[in-house]
């Protein structure tokens, strides 16, 4: 029987290994991120307003669309590695034989993704805000609150993608994940528009948006950093995110049993 100290030691060793791997990939990830941020700043900050988009939408779009899309891309790549491993390499079999409780093992997967995403996206968010300059508008929220919601958003995405990698087969994931899961989440969530603008256009249909966990995640990010009455209040978003996280945990648990339990 392992002691808590043993578990922590193995857990830290696994994370240290991942950080070493991440270090070798970091330059590539940062370059990819810089490209995404530069294009986002150019399109949302400069070109779409020329077509008539209101300038007030720049900041919420940057947080809701670009940041969330970047997190989704990182999550997708991470999940793709896991799906590939489950189908071909089966490196996970080695992890399962480690003297570490399974709950710790899956927490390690989640933590690894969250650290990687935070290291890559946080500097880019700051850089994007600086590059957008006055177009970004005033920051009426608090950085502390933003970090809390951002952490919850990372946890949500990591649970969503890890769960998906266990739920679906390699072929299904490769062919259908974007079209049937990620895109509908973004389109029927407030990624391209704020929830209040959507509600003003489709008051009845917008009620369905409450069923989408991305509504709470995206609006939570906006409300915590930008503040003001234009976004869904944090008192709604934070409980919404927690419910979404619990649901994703149940989904992940189901996926793990489905994929790994031979009985």
């Amino acid at each position, binding site marked *: 029987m392992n002691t808590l100290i043993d578990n922590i030691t193995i857990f830290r060793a696994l994370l240290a290994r991942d950080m070493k791997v991440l270090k070798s990939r970091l330059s590539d990830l940062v*370059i990819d991120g810089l490209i995404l941020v530069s294009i986002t700043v150019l399109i949302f900050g400069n070109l779409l307003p020329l077509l008539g988009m209101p300038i007030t939408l720049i900041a919420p779009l940057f947080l809701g669309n670009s940041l969330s899309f970047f997190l989704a891309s990182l999550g997708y790549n991470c999940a793709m590695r896991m799906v590939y491993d489950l189908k071909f390499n089966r490196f996970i079999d080695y992890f399962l034989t480690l003297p570490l409780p399974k709950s710790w093992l899956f927490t390690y997967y989640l933590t690894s993704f969250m650290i990687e995403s935070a290291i890559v996206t946080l500097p880019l968010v700051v850089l994007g805000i600086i590059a957008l300059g006055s177009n970004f508008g005033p920051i009426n929220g608090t950085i502390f609150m933003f970090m809390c919601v951002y952490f919850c958003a990372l946890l949500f995405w990591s649970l969503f993608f890890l769960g998906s990698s266990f739920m679906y087969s390699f072929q299904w994931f490769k062919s259908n994940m974007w079209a049937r899961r990620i895109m509908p989440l973004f389109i029927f969530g407030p990624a*391209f528009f704020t929830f209040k603008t959507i509600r003003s256009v489709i008051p009845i249909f917008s009620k369905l948006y409450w069923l989408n966990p991305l509504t709470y995640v995206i609006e939570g990010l906006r409300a915590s950093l930008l503040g003001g009455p234009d976004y869904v209040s944090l008192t709604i978003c934070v409980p919404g995110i927690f419910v979404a996280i619990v649901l994703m945990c149940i989904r992940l648990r189901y996926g793990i049993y489905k994929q790994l339990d031979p009985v």
Partner: protein
Amino acid sequence: MVFTNNWIRYEPYSAQVSKGKHMKKLLQTIQVFLQFFYRDLYVHTQQLPAHLINYSIIYPTLYIFAFAFLQTEIYFGGQTQVGATVFSGTCLVPLLVMVFHITFDLLFDLEKNRHIDFQITVLDPRLILIEQILFASFFTFLIMIPFFPLARIFASSYIDLSNISWSSLFIILYLGSLCAAAYHKLAAVLLTVQKISMFWTRVNHILLVLGGFWIPLHIVRQFSPTLGFLLRFNPVVYLTEGLRQSVVGGSQFLPLWQCATALFILSIIFTLLCFYFFKRRVDHI
């Protein structure tokens, strides 16, 4: 003996035999070419329902809802022509993803099973590449056909599709599929599996977003003439400008003939480059 108009020309017996052989070989080549085409059709028909659901139903429906309806109302205050301009470029994503799925089979094959080694023993490698490019372009075109008719049915009250020219739209859509297929085939010959994600982020994403997914060329020119000039080297621009010219029309977009010519010439250039790099990758000598 060969009859040409009223002239009778005698040829030596050996020349006649070699010409007969040549004809037979040509027929054989065409037959093998068509067999490969049918094979690809058979393989991809297995995935046709999934492709149709994803690219002919889900993507158009989602994009009509988000970019034709909501975006026009929220971003552009209900200006139906601006809405149609932006919406026309959105079919790029399903088109490129679809082409990618078909053409990159070659890359996975080159790195794993190498069925291509067998194929090039029965048909000229250049013809195999042409067959694969043509197949990918036809298949993608067929999958993409419902995109605009669906928009016409469900979104014509939100975006202005009254000026749509169906014949030119489908010509541009096919030439765009052809160009995208040749370009992706070239990428499949050049890249390795590990670089696919990088290829999407660093190449395709830039080409797509700056190629007119959101913004037409004249707006980019208005923002920065230098960037507008540089974008003339982006093949995707000719597809989106052609689509916008067919859907919305007007002098602000590039003329249709220019887009069609550019797409066709770029398809040929990509195909020729594909021959060259394919030989370098497969030929060990």
